[in-house]
């Protein structure tokens, strides 16, 4: 039997706080590794300073599919040679353009292979930033949190999120609508 109230309450409180800290702060730290993009791509320079529209690099093809991220083919239009002072731009030109190598960009929303997502089915109803990080306003791409167990990005939409939105908007939740 404990002699006083605090002898019971205090260890309990310490344990509770420790568990909360460990679960909410410690575990995510351990679970996710932090990665940075191979090149520090500056959206602000391209969008605000150069006035390039989103669709110039992130476009729909004629068959309705979405290109996603641009390839060197898009970039060499300007970056055949180094344009500015940015060391990352110089690195991009020397390490990728000149060597004809594509940049292995980390995709924050990358879905598993068995998921089918149609951008064109969603683009009239939603802003890009409702699902994607608002990178257009960022000079430095956000940190890429990779789940050490699954290998997927922390920002990859979960199935329950897709289903919830489909249910709320009256879209079908049949398996084959999103799976392949």
């Amino acid at each position, binding site marked *: 039997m404990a002699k006083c109230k605090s002898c019971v309450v205090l260890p309990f409180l310490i344990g509770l706080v420790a568990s909360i800290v460990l679960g909410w702060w410690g575990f995510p730290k351990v679970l996710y590794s932090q990665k940075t993009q191979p090149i520090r791509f500056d959206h602000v320079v391209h969008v605000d300073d150069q006035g390039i529209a989103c669709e110039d690099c992130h476009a*729909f093809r*004629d*068959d*309705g*599919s979405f290109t996603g991220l641009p390839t060197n083919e898009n970039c060499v239009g300007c970056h055949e040679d180094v344009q500015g002072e940015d060391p990352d731009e110089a690195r991009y030109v020397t390490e990728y353009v000149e060597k004809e190598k594509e940049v292995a960009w980390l995709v924050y929303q990358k879905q*598993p*292979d*068995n998921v*089918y997502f*149609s951008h*064109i*089915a969603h683009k009239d109803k939603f802003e890009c930033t409702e699902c994607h990080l608002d990178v257009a306003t960022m000079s430095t791409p956000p940190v890429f949190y990779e789940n050490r167990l699954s290998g997927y990005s922390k920002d990859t939409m979960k199935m329950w999120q897709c289903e919830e939105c489909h249910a709320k908007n009256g879209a*079908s939740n*049949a*398996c*084959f*609508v999103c*799976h*392949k």
Partner: protein
Amino acid sequence: MQAHNFKVKWGMVIDLDKCTGCGACSVACRAENNLPPEVDAGNKLRTADWMNIYELSNGKPFPEHEVAYLPRPCMQCGKPSCSTVCPVVATTKDEEGGIVSQVYPRCIGCRYCMAACPYHARYFNWFDPIWPEGMEKTLTPYVSARPRGVVEKCTFCHHRFNAAKEQARINGEDPTALPEDAYIPACAEICPTGAIKFGDLNNAEHEVSKIAASDNAFRLLAKLGTDPQVYYYSKREWVRKLGDNYLKNAKGEDHV
């Protein structure tokens, strides 16, 4: 089980009088759907052919002997036997168009569906899918490759359905009302004799619904009441009769 009523019902009609058994549909299917090279193609208990071709014979000696070839995709049954027995809801018939889905990561490989399917249209992955070096370049990104231990089947090239809807959307057309030739599976596209027709069975304008209404059209094992979305067509009565398990001493001539 309550059957769904879909506005669009994708269906196939295969003209067995035109089919030469060449196997092009089967080959196109394998390439389109990322089926790996067989480990032992001689062991038919371990092979997979989403579009399998059977040889039919009228059983008569020469010179009356006749053969026909019957390509067999998944029937996309209106009342599927497979989805009702699946313990993990990995296969369902719930999408507009009536294509029976198969979600591979969900499948636990129990193979109840294979036992339930009267058409043997389902296949189990007995081996890891391995493409010899260089062959991996033949993989398409539109169909997910299946691991060992799950069941797979024909999906009427469902990714082509999705692609057709995307095309309709960018053209400003209604993705729920696709024109007749906008969505065609690989087998129907490649068939050199035009024996395989594809379209909406609910649309009277589509050729498939016209042929399906013919007296010479029939469905496999129609007596079971699975209500397949695949029809066959033959002017030869013995071929139509083989579409169902008619006993030699059976009375009546009703073939559906």
